[in-house]
């Protein structure tokens, strides 16, 4: 029943998309700058139907309707209600529904919020967006249908992977999707702009807020994913350069480059084609990422049951998108003569873009290189953190310095009249760094450079804040975002340098001591919960007079039968204590991994502040328009 209803809604969505394309095309041929009302109505109905369709699926998960394969494979009647709901997008089929929702909602909102742009541009954007929607709807219907029926109906489902039963992971996909599926709208707008020759500055104002919104959500989505990895994967790290993390980072680099260069485009009418290329690139990279993690071509946490036909479908779709947009771009491309002054804001923004492209290419190469060697030479290699750390971090030093001085450059022709001040700031940064070494400990040359450049960026931003406040031309969004990025790098650097890690085998009652810490294994308890059993250890960490109790768990989930290790984390403003425990077979010893991770909370907060910077700029733009 629910299967038929869901399929009917999917079918209606296809019909609506086709009607919108047909009507928009018809409307294009009419005179005047008015878009007929029924296009708006259809677009609204389309979003509504897709949302209802998604809620139908959620309902099926809530009532544990195992007549649907997707529900059977990813849910269980004993699961807490929250995870029944979030299980809807915790699997391949359901998450594609989320794709389509965002595609349709963005399509509708773009249509209604851009009334003062040419009709042709808006209608073409709508048509392209609906072609994308159709592409994904067909994908869903053909080989990823969440409403596929199952007969005979099983009594119980297989359950959701326990490590996905987590509040952070409940919001992680929607946030990330608003980011990278949201970028579809400026992909469509870029194609529409090329076709309709709408290349004026106004084009920038039609897409810049969409870029900011998608960028902010993408950043948040990545953050939540990292936080989850930090406390759930049990290794104490928060970034592993896993292909799937890289897949989310690639469009992020492109978006970051884009919303910087669009400032130049809007102000100076330069870089039009570059902006278009970035718009196209962002969404193409999003789809590429989806292809990489969904097709099973790379091993990763996010590889759902891999089915080669899915891979082929996304790959064909991706190829069409790439060749279509490259073909159109080549057809319309005119050489632009930049004639930029080397010392100008325009150049600095370009420098930002070079860095972003550098990072993008590095991460892209690292991610797809194993596929290349595998396909060409059958040589299996894997590119891990050493590659990324060696290439990315040294370059960050220079990048941060540009980030500090770039924003103050003037348009067209800049003159640095405050070199002395920058010199003082640099001196200050070096001094603080020396103090850190003096009072705490020595660290590597590269870490020194990274920390100094991060401090340089922070202090410069602070200086900008004071000066621009006096002059009354405060650009708070930029200052917050840039300073927070400086803080982020600083905290990551300090965290890396000052982390402590110890590994012990312990049994109840034992005490281990090192430096001025002592760890006591006090107790062990068995607890029963609705969908799992837990062995909970109690440990007392004593450092001078600072006493903390940590309770790591080993959880035994019944459906599916899985064991997970839950880290116990004590967060404070200065440091996190991080403890994991695992049992050793046929003995009463437990393996304990203790970590002290300084300033963790500040890493998360810095990212949140970066997002706040982005949102502030969005609000300001929205107010101005």
């Amino acid at each position: 029943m629910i299967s038929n209803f869901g399929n009917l809604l999917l079918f209606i969505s296809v019909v609506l998309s086709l009607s919108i394309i047909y009507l928009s095309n018809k409307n294009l041929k009419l005179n005047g700058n008015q878009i007929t009302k029924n296009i708006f109505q259809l677009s609204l109905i389309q979003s509504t139907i897709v949302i209802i369709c998604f809620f139908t699926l959620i309902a099926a998960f809530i009532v544990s309707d195992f007549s649907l394969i997707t529900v059977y494979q990813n849910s269980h009647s004993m699961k807490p209600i929250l995870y029944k709901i979030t299980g809807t997008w915790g699997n391949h089929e359901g998450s594609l529904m989320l794709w389509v929702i965002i595609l349709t909602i963005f399509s509708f909102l773009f249509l209604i919020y851009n009334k003062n742009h040419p009709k042709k541009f808006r209608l073409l954007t709508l048509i392209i967006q609906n072609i994308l929607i159709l592409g994904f709807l067909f994908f869903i219907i053909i080989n990823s249908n969440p409403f596929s029926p199952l007969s005979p109906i099983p009594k119980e489902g297989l359950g959701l992977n326990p490590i996905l039963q987590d509040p952070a992971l409940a919001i992680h996909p929607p946030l990330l999707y608003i980011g990278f599926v949201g970028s579809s709208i400026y992909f469509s707008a870029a194609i529409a702009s090329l076709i309709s020759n709408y290349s004026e500055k106004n084009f920038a104002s039609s897409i810049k807020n969409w870029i900011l919104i998608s960028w902010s959500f993408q950043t948040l989505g990545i953050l939540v994913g990292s936080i989850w990895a930090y406390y759930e994967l049990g290794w104490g790290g928060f970034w592993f350069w896993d292909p799937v993390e890289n897949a989310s980072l690639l469009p992020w680099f492109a978006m970051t480059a884009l919303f910087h260069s669009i400032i130049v485009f809007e102000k100076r009418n330069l870089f039009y084609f570059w902006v278009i290329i970035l718009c196209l690139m962002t969404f193409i990279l999003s789809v590429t990422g989806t292809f990489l993690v969904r097709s099973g071509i790379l091993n990763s946490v996010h590889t759902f049951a891999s089915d080669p036909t899915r891979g082929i479908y996304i790959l064909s779709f991706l190829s069409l998108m790439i060749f279509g947009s490259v073909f159109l771009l080549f057809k319309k491309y005119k050489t632009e003569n930049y004639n930029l002054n080397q010392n100008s804001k325009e150049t600095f923004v370009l420098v930002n873009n070079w860095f972003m492209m550098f990072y993008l290419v590095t991460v892209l190469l690292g991610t797809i290189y194993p596929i290349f060697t595998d396909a060409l030479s059958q040589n299996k290699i894997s590119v891990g953190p050493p590659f990324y750390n060696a290439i990315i971090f040294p370059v960050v030093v220079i990048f941060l310095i540009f980030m500090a001085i770039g924003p103050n450059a003037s348009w067209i022709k800049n003159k640095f009249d405050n070199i002395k001040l920058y010199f003082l700031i640099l001196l200050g940064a070096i001094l603080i760094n020396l103090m850190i070494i003096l009072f705490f400990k020595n660290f590597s040359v590269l870490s020194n450079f990274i920390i100094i450049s991060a401090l340089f960026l922070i202090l410069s931003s602070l200086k900008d804040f004071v000066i621009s406040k006096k002059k009354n031309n405060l650009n708070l969004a930029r200052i917050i975002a840039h300073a927070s990025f400086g803080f982020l790098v600083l905290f990551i650097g300090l965290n890396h340098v000052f982390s402590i890690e110890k590994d012990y085998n312990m049994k109840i009652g034992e005490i281990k001591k090192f430096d001025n810490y002592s760890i006591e294994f006090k107790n062990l308890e068995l607890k029963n919960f609705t969908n799992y059993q837990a062995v909970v250890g109690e440990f007392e960490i004593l450092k001078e007079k600072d006493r903390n109790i940590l309770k790591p768990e080993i959880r035994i989930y019944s459906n599916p039968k899985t064991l997970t290790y839950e880290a116990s984390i004590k967060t404070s403003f200065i440091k996190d204590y991080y403890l994991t425990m695992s049992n050793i077979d046929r003995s009463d010893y437990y393996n304990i991994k203790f970590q002290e991770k300084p300033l963790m909370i500040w890493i998360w907060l810095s990212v949140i502040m970066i997002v706040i910077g982005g949102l502030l700029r969005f609000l300001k733009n929205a107010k101005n328009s």
Partner: protein
Amino acid sequence: MQKIVKTIIFLIFLFILSIFFIGLNRDTNYNTANQINKEIPDFKVSYLDKENFFIKNDLRKNNFTLINFWASWCAPCRIEHPILIRLSEEKNIKIVGVNFKDKKEQAKKFLGELGNPYDVSTKDTSGKQSVLFGIYGIPESILIDKQLIVIKKFVGPLSVNDLNYIKEIIK
């Protein structure tokens, strides 16, 4: 000039997409069927715990050896684990575990929790050595005799039938 640049860009995209396409179908790259009745390839894997290496000749002292490829992140490996434990009680066979593309701590946790059936535990962190055996998905196991000839290859988790089959052979 512009035409050349355009063609090159086009070709680059074509190249990347074709590689993706080949990658999708790469499973067929490793045809493992023809390894039976042949001697196993030369290989060199390091021990899970130690830094020194375990090589082909180390297998010659066993009458029969089952080389089992596994990882802590692999769910079917959990399913076959009890079978391996049962097999480890047999005297005439040694089990060599190759921990495939895994993290050492995770691997040790896995064995700590489910028991360690392996007479020798080795690791293949990059997955390169396993490719020599034609491993394309784990778990997989290879049964070899004293002359290091492959008797049978088990793709996927070992079943009770597989266990009986092995017991029959090594009798």
